[in-house]
């Protein structure tokens, strides 16, 4: 059964009040909500390689109307985001009906539909002074000493125009009060924002939350390697807390107080 039929059925049976997907408008795929009132628009529903954090839209809708039943077209990354939003009580699994679509190629799927599959290319200047998008964090640590790492990150962060694109696109950014908009923490009207604090605040908040969808890096107009940064943050989280966000419905260790610890404080000269 094709997806249009499937959505039509879900809407007509009342299984979902709104179905979040994409529609083609002037050659662009834009996020769109299909409801019973606009069934005639259903033929414009298309699944393409373009993606958007639809689950973020779902979170906003649920905020306004907690009982709304939402259908959503989902790839693997969307599914991870949904899992995470369930564990943080932002969405209720019984109110969400995901329809899985083609994602990364695998044994059952020979082709893929996702913008991420074109690896980002890194220019020569960025390669020399900044950070390669496709760098391996281990190699980055090995090939750069403390001060080199610092200057590379500062080069990247200094390009920030504080557009908040990374936060706005992020499917797992749902706090009603964002630290990055608090004038006492982040000085308004100054560009770039206070670096590296601005980016490290976000990096810290992404720890144990980031589901590695890569939308922030796609959205960043300054080409800051955010996915690389948050990936490493979550590598640390998985080492220290033994937790990978979005994989299951396990509660985030950041919300659990107590627990046994086997770590020792680092000696001062480590």
């Amino acid at each position, binding site marked *: 059964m094709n997806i249009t039929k499937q959505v039509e059925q879900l809407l007509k049976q009342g299984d979902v009040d709104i179905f979040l997907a994409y529609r083609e408008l002037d050659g662009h795929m834009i996020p769109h909500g299909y409801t019973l009132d606009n069934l005639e628009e259903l033929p414009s529903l298309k699944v393409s390689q373009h993606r958007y954090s639809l689950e973020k839209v779902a979170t906003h809708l649920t905020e306004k109307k907690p009982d709304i039943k939402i259908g959503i077209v989902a790839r693997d990354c969307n599914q991870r985001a949904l899992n995470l939003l369930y564990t943080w009580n932002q969405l209720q699994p019984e109110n969400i009906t995901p329809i899985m679509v083609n994602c990364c190629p695998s044994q059952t799927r020979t082709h893929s539909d996702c913008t991420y599959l074109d690896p980002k290319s890194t220019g020569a200047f960025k390669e020399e002074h900044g950070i390669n998008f496709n760098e391996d*964090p281990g190699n980055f*640590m090995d090939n*750069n*000493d*403390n*001060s*080199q*790492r*610092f*200057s*590379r*990150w*500062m080069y990247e962060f*200094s390009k920030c125009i504080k557009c908040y694109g990374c936060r706005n696109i992020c499917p797992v950014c749902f706090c009603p009060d964002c630290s990055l908009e608090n*004038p006492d923490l982040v*000085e*308004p*009207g*100054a*560009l*770039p924002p*206070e*670096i*590296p604090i601005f980016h*490290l605040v976000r*990096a*810290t908040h992404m*720890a144990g939350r980031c589901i590695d969808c890569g939308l922030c890096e796609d959205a960043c107009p300054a080409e800051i390697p955010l996915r690389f940064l948050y990936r*490493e*943050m979550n590598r*640390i*989280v998985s*080492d*220290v*807390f033994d937790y990978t966000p979005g994989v299951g419905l396990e509660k985030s*260790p950041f919300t659990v*107080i*107590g*627990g046994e*610890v086997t*770590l*020792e*404080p*680092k000696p*001062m*000269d*480590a």
Partner: protein
Amino acid sequence: MTIKRITFVQEMLKFMGLEGRLHLEWISSAEAQKFARVVTEFTDKITHLGPSPIAKATRLIPMEPYGEKRRKHEYHKAG
């Protein structure tokens, strides 16, 4: 929990190239000597590392508006 969180931040700072500027130690209120020793050692360590590179690096970046305006919170008040 504290130790896990601090370990996380230490690793993050290491990744950023700011290694060694964060230290965690458990000291009871009855351990004045330990407190004095740890603080002295850490002060020595920081002195040895020198001033934070952040201040130096951000001075090199042309920022507009900077200086007076930045300090006076003009934009904040206007908003």
